[in-house]
């Protein structure tokens, strides 16, 4: 193979790895929107909280990562429930724009609170994972792990939604929320459980991101908007659409970055998004 082809292949594979991670991030947001009909604009800030949780438990309190990470997942799941009970529940019947503004408020609240509590400096785990060489290509082990865990997370959620009653109820309520109570299902309970699940997915995301990136109060802004745009492009609330859009977006970033410069990858990806909104404003799939 020509050296150019090898680098291109490497870029495509790196895009695939990034796509897995973005897919996981979009999944939680889509799940929440699909079931509760509210967009958690502050989703990435929950992830930021999870990253701080892993950092403090591991670095400050010397918990091993295999204990700190599950703990962080539980913490973010509880944050998700808290967010639902305190912020979402009172605006469930409100206009969508108000719901958006309220969760937007939570975004800046969490950012400001994190700055107050943890300071503005970048913190990292100090864990450096080696690069994995395959032939003449090299991949970051952190990315490989993140990809593997993201795929497992996506599959786990899929099995849960298909094979359990709660999962069936969650799929059902996203189709017709008014009829669910007739089956004896309390919508409030399903909403709370879905919030916990969405939070847990954000928690898993934070474990994978903290392996690759430093955590700081504004870290959410680096992947919050992209996660949201992926969900919109896939069709808000459509999990399948979100997964496909995540991989498409990641290829634009990775391969676009390969042909031009890394920053260009993002420019092209977002330009593609804007174009898509003209062609298919409802997203790839409709819920």
């Amino acid at each position: 193979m020509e050296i150019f082809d090898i680098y291109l292949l490497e870029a495509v594979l790196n895009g695939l790895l990034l796509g897995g991670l973005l897919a996981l991030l979009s999944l939680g947001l889509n799940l929440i929107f699909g079931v509760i009909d509210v967009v958690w604009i502050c989703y990435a800030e929950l992830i930021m909280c999870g990253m701080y949780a892993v950092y403090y438990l591991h670095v400050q309190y010397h918990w091993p990562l295999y204990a700190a990470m599950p703990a962080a997942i539980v913490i973010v799941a509880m944050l998700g429930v808290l967010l639902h009970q305190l912020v979402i529940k009172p605006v469930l019947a409100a206009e969508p724009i108000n719901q958006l503004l309220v969760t937007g408020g939570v975004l800046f609240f969490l950012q400001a609170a994190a700055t107050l509590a943890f300071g503005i400096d970048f913190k990292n785990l100090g864990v450096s994972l080696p690069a994995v060489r395959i032939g003449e290509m090299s991949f970051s082990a952190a990315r490989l792990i993140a990809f593997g865990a993201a795929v497992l997370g996506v599959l786990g959620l899929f099995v849960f939604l298909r094979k359990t009653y709660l999962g069936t109820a969650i799929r059902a309520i996203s189709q017709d929320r008014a009829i669910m109570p007739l089956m004896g299902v309390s919508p409030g309970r399903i909403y709370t459980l879905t919030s916990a699940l969405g939070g847990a997915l954000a928690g898993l995301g934070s474990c994978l991101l903290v392996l690759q990136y430093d955590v700081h109060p504004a870290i959410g802004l680096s992947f919050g908007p992209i996660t949201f745009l992926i969900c919109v492009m896939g069709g808000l609330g459509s999990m399948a659409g979100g997964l496909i859009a995540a991989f498409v977006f990641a290829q634009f970033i990775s391969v676009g970055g390969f042909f031009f410069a890394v920053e260009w990858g993002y420019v092209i990806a977002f330009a593609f998004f804007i174009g898509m909104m003209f062609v298919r404003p409802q997203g790839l799939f409709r819920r």
Partner: protein
Amino acid sequence: MFLQVSKLTKRFGGFTAVSDVSFEVAEGEILGLIGPNGSGKSTTFNLIAGALKPDAGSVRFRGDEVGGLPAYRVAHAGIGRTYQIPRPFKKLSLLENVALAAFYGANSRLSREKAFELAKDSLKLVGLQETKVEGLGASALKKLELARALATQPKLLLADESLGGLDHAEMDGAADMLARIRAERGVTIVWVEHIMGVLMRVVDRCVVLDHGVVIAQGKPADVAKDAKVIEVYLGTDAFA
């Protein structure tokens, strides 16, 4: 009394949809709730099933007040309900649709096997053999709606049948099915309908609503002779 509705009232703005409606249902009976379109039948149903909160009055089911409870708690109390316009979950399989109702309906946490068994039983009772929701016709969708309500193991079934979209053979079939459901499951039934003829054949008693008020109640034969009922229905095709 099995079901006791007293002085039930519901207003929408200045419009009183249901006004001081009172009637009783005895255990094991099939009661026809009839009246022309817009007479308040569906609103009464919604008030009993918890889809709407009454402005005044009470609904007592087996001694307990259920008026104003959220719909899922009314379902747990043992009241099942079908909608006039079937609302299946289109992305779930037929069996999943019914099994979901079986699992959550009675609030008893059935095992997966038990719930599916109950779902299959209910589908058999209504005579539905298909596996997919997509492509079901009007008559089959009504059967699915009924199977779903039955799977919650109700003691009282509120059937909003409104057979308007069905032909005569299908209407007769639907009427016979309600009779069969009572015979096999021992379920008490309140049947909402605006076409009187087919209903009169299977119900034990009727309550007739007009403009949100009860204008007559009693045995079908007596109600059909009632002057007020005839006046309300005269000149409409619903009397047939």
